[in-house]
C-alpha cells in the first residue's frame, strides 16, 4: 500500500504527557503502567506475606494472643486469639492476593508492560488506552477484594479455589461467606476483565509493532514468554470470567448452577436444586492450571534473558526454549483434571488427564537441561540478578520433581490435599516465579529508575531468601508424606501431633525469611533516591532496552526508529570489540544463524 505522507500525530499513539495526572496517574505510557503494576504487586505481596506470618504463628500457637490482631477484626480475633474461621479468611486472602495480584501481575503485567514494547523496538503498546484501563480495572479488583477485610463478617473462608457449594450457599455455611464471598467473586470477575484487556494488548503489540528487522525469532526470550503467556491468559481468563459470573448469580440471584438439591446447611434446607459442584471445579481448574503457567512462564523467560547475560554466552538453543514454552502452554489446557483425581470424576478420565500431565515433564526437563548445559564452559558473572536466576533453576527443579507424584492418580489418593501439594506449588509457581521477579528487579531496576541497586544488600537478600525458602518449603513435603492435611487452622488429630516440631521449624524459618524481605524493600526505596546513577548499559547486555537512556524518555527511542540486525543472544562473540554485540549494531558476525 502506498502511503502519501506521514500524518502529524498517530492515532492510538500519544504525544508527550503533560501534567502530573497524565504523567503518573492516568498515564498512557506503558512504562508508567508497568511500574504501577509493579507497585500494586509489591503492596499485595507484603500484605500476603504478613498474612502468612499470622497463619504460621497461629499454627504453632493456636491459642496464642497476637498483639493488635483484635484491632483488625474483633470477631475474627476476640482478645487477640485467632478463631478457626479467621485463619481460613486469612488463608483465602493470602492465596487470592498472591496468585492473582502478585504472581500474575509482577512477572507478566509489570515487567511485560515495561519491557515488551521496548524490547521489540516499539514506541508503546498497540492500544495505550486499553492498557491504562487494564491497570485501573485491576486496581479496582484489588480494592474490592481488600474491602473484605473491613466488613463485619470478614473475608471469605472458602480458599482461593472457592469450591462450590461452600462458596455458593451463603452465610449458612459459615462466617465470611456472605458479602465477603460476594466481594471475592466480583473482584475476580473484574480482575479477569483487566487481564483480558492486557493480554489482548500484549498479543497485538507483539504481532504488529515490531521494529524493522525484529523477526519473531529475534525477539528476546522474555518477550517470547510474555507473548505465550498472553495467549494462555487470554483463553484462561475468558473461562474464569463466566465461571465467576455464574457463581455470583448463584449467590445473589438465586440461580442453581453449582448448588444441587437437598442440601441441609446449618440445619436449613437450601432452596436450590439441580446444580453441579463439579462444574465449578472443571471451569475453575480449566483456568487454574494454565494460571500456574501464567505465573511461571514469564519467570522462565526473564531468567533465560538474564542468564545469557550473566554467563556471557548464548543458551545452547534459544529455539528449543521457545518451543518448550509453547508446548507447555499448549499442554496446560489438557491437564486441569489432575486437580480432581479424588473428586469423583470418572476414573477413566483421571488416567486421560494423567498422561498429558506427565508429558509436561518433557518440555520442562528439556528447558532445565538447556539452562544447565549452557553453564558448561561459560564465564559466569555473579550479580544479585544472576544469583536469583540460578536460584530460580534450583527452585524450579525442586518444585518440579514433586509434580511426578501428583501427576499420578494412584499416588494422589494418598498425597492429595496434604502439605506435599502445598510444598509443590509454593516452590514451583510461588517461590520460583518470585525468584524470577527478584532477578528481573535487580537486572532492570537501573533501566527503570536510572539508578543502581545496592549489590551488597542484594546478595544478603539472596542468601537469606534462597536458604530460607528451602527451609520453609522442603519440610512441607515431609509433612505431606506423613499425611499432614492442608488448610487446617490447628492440628488436633493424634497422628499430626508428632509433626509439630516440623511446623515449629517452618514457622521460625518463615519469620526470618519474611523479615529478610525488608532488606529488599529498603534496597528498592533507598536505591531509588540515593543509588548510584546508572549508565545506559550497566550489564553489557544486547537487547534493545539497553540502547536507550536510563530511564527511557516517554517515547522510548526518541525520534529514532531502531533497526535490528541480530538476535539478542550474541554474547561471547569472537572478534567483536567487547564480548557481545547489541541487537541494533550493524556489525557483521561470523557464523550467525
Amino acid at each position, binding site marked *: 500500500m502506498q502511503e502519501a505522507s506521514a500524518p502529524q500525530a498517530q492515532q492510538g499513539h500519544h504525544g508527550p504527557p503533560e501534567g502530573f495526572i497524565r504523567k503518573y496517574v492516568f498515564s498512557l505510557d506503558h512504562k508508567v503502567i508497568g511500574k504501577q503494576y509493579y507497585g500494586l504487586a509489591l503492596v499485595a505481596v507484603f500484605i500476603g506475606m504478613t498474612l502468612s506470618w499470622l497463619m504460621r504463628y497461629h499454627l504453632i500457637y493456636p491459642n496464642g494472643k497476637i498483639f493488635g490482631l483484635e484491632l483488625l477484626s474483633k470477631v475474627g480475633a476476640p482478645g487477640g486469639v485467632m478463631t*478457626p474461621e479467621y485463619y*481460613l479468611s486469612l488463608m483465602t486472602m493470602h492465596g487470592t492476593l498472591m496468585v492473582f495480584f502478585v504472581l500474575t501481575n509482577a512477572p507478566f503485567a509489570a515487567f511485560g508492560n515495561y519491557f515488551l514494547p521496548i524490547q521489540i523496538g516499539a514506541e508503546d503498546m498497540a492500544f495505550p488506552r486499553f492498557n491504562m484501563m487494564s491497570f485501573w480495572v485491576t486496581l479496582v479488583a484489588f480494592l474490592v477484594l481488600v474491602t473484605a477485610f473491613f466488613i463485619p463478617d470478614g473475608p471469605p*473462608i472458602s*480458599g482461593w479455589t472457592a469450591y462450590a*457449594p*461452600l462458596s455458593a450457599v451463603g452465610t449458612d*455455611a*459459615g*462466617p465470611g461467606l456472605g458479602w465477603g464471598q460476594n466481594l471475592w467473586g466480583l473482584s475476580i470477575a473484574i480482575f479477569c476483565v483487566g487481564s483480558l484487556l492486557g493480554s489482548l494488548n500484549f498479543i497485538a503489540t507483539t504481532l504488529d509493532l515490531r521494529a524493522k528487522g525484529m523477526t519473531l525469532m529475534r525477539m528476546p526470550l522474555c518477550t517470547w514468554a510474555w507473548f505465550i503467556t498472553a495467549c494462555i491468559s487470554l483463553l484462561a481468563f475468558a473461562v474464569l470470567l463466566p465461571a465467576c459470573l455464574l457463581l455470583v448469580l448463584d449467590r445473589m440471584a438465586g440461580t442453581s448452577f453449582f*448448588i*444441587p438439591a437437598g442440601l*441441609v*446447611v*446449618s440445619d436449613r*434446607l437450601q432452596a436450590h436444586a439441580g446444580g453441579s*459442584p*463439579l462444574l465449578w471445579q472443571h471451569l475453575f481448574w480449566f483456568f487454574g492450571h494454565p494460571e500456574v503457567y501464567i505465573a511461571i512462564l514469564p519467570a522462565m523467560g526473564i531468567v533465560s534473558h538474564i542468564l545469557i547475560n550473566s*554467563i*556471557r554466552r548464548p543458551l*545452547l*538453543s534459544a529455539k*528449543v526454549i521457545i518451543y518448550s514454552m509453547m508446548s507447555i502452554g499448549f499442554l496446560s489446557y489438557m491437564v486441569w483434571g489432575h486437580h480432581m483425581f479424588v473428586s*469423583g470424576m470418572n*476414573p477413566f478420565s*483421571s488416567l486421560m488427564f494423567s498422561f498429558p500431565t*506427565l508429558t509436561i515433564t518433557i518440555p520442562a*526437563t*528439556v528447558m532445565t537441561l*538447556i539452562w*544447565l*548445559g549452557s*553453564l*558448561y*564452559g*561459560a564465564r*559466569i558473572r*555473579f550479580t544479585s540478578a544472576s544469583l536469583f536466576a540460578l536460584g530460580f533453576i534450583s527452585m524450579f*527443579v*525442586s518444585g518440579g*520433581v514433586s509434580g*511426578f507424584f501428583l501427576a*499420578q492418580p*494412584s*499416588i494422589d*489418593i*494418598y498425597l492429595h490435599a496434604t502439605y506435599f501439594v502445598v510444598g509443590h506449588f509454593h516452590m514451583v509457581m510461588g517461590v520460583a516465579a518470585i525468584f524470577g521477579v527478584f532477578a528481573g528487579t535487580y537486572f532492570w531496576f537501573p533501566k527503570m529508575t536510572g539508578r543502581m541497586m545496592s549489590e551488597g544488600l542484594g546478595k544478603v537478600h539472596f542468601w537469606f531468601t*534462597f*536458604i530460607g525458602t*528451602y527451609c520453609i518449603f522442603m519440610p512441607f513435603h*515431609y509433612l505431606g*508424606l506423613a*499425611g499432614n492435611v*492442608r*488448610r487446617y*487452622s*490447628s*492440628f*488436633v488429630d493424634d*497422628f499430626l501431633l508428632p509433626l509439630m516440631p516440623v511446623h515449629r521449624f517452618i514457622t521460625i524459618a518463615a519469620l526470618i525469611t519474611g523479615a529478610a524481605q525488608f532488606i529488599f524493600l529498603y534496597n528498592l526505596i533507598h536505591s531509588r533516591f540515593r543509588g548510584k546513577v546508572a549508565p545506559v548499559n550497566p550489564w553489557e547486555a544486547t537487547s534493545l532496552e539497553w540502547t536507550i537512556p536510563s530511564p527511557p524518555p516517554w517515547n522510548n527511542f526518541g525520534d529514532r526508529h531502531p533497526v535490528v540486525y541480530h538476535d539478542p543472544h550474541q554474547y*561471547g562473540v569472537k572478534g567483536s570489540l567487547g564480548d557481545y554485540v547489541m541487537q541494533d549494531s550493524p556489525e557483521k558476525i561470523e557464523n550467525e544463524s
Partner: protein
Amino acid sequence: MGKFFAVVLTIIALVSAVPIVMHTWWMPPDISTHGHAIDEQLTDTMAEAGFSFLAAQLLLALFVWKFSERKDSGPIKSLPGGAKGLVIAALILVGTEMLALGVLGQKAWASVYFTPASPNALQVQAQAGQFAFYFRYPGADGKFGALHPDKIDEGNQNYFGLDPANEVEARDDIVSGELAIPANREVLLLIHAKDVGHSFYVPELRIQQDFVPGLDLSVHFTATKVGRYEIVCTQLCGLGHYNMKAYLNVMSQEDFDKWLKQKASEQ
C-alpha cells in the same frame, strides 16, 4: 561467590534428601489390601524423582563451581553434544520414565477404581456434614431407610434425615459416630454429602475420596489390621474443617458383631 553457591546448594540438596532416605517422617504402615500397590508406586517415583532432583542440583552446583569467575580469556566452550544431544536425552530418558510411571501407575489406580466391589461386601453409608462424619449400617433387614433432607434434626441425633415413623426400613438402621468394620472383609462405603464438599481420608488405609454434594459415590476397601485409626476431612468445608474427624475401628468379626448388637440396642 560461585564456589559458595555451589557448596550451599550441595548441602541443601543432600540435607533435603536425608529425611526421605531415613523415612524420618513417612507414610504410616499400610493396613489395606490395595495399599501396597500405591506404596510401591510411590517408592518407585521417589527413586526417580530423588535421582532427578539430586542429579540436577548437583550438576548445577558443579557447573557453577567450575565456570564461575573464569580467569582465562579463552573462548567459551560448549557442552559436547549441544542442544540436540540434550533434547534427545531428555526425550528418551524422561519420556520412557514418565511413560513407565504412567503405565505402572494405572495398575495401582485400577486396583482401587476399576474393580467392582464384591456383592457380599459390607455396605456402610458415610455421611459428611459440617463438621462431623456419621456412618449408617442397614440393620437386621439389610436395607437402608430413605433419606429425607427435610427430616434432618441434629438436636435429636437424626443426622441422616430418616423417617422411622413412616418407614419400617429406617427403624433398624444403626447410626454411629465411628466407622467400625470387621478386619479382612471388604467394605463398600457409600459416600453421601449433607451440605458442602468434604473428603474421606484415612492415611493408613490409603484411601481418599471426596464427598460431592448431589453426587453419591462409593469406594471399597479391605482393612487387614485390627486397630483404631483416624478418619479426617481433607476438603475445605468451613470453619470446623480442622476438627472434622471420626475414628475407623477395625475389629475382629466377633467384636464387630458384638459392637453392632450393642449399637442396635442404643438406637
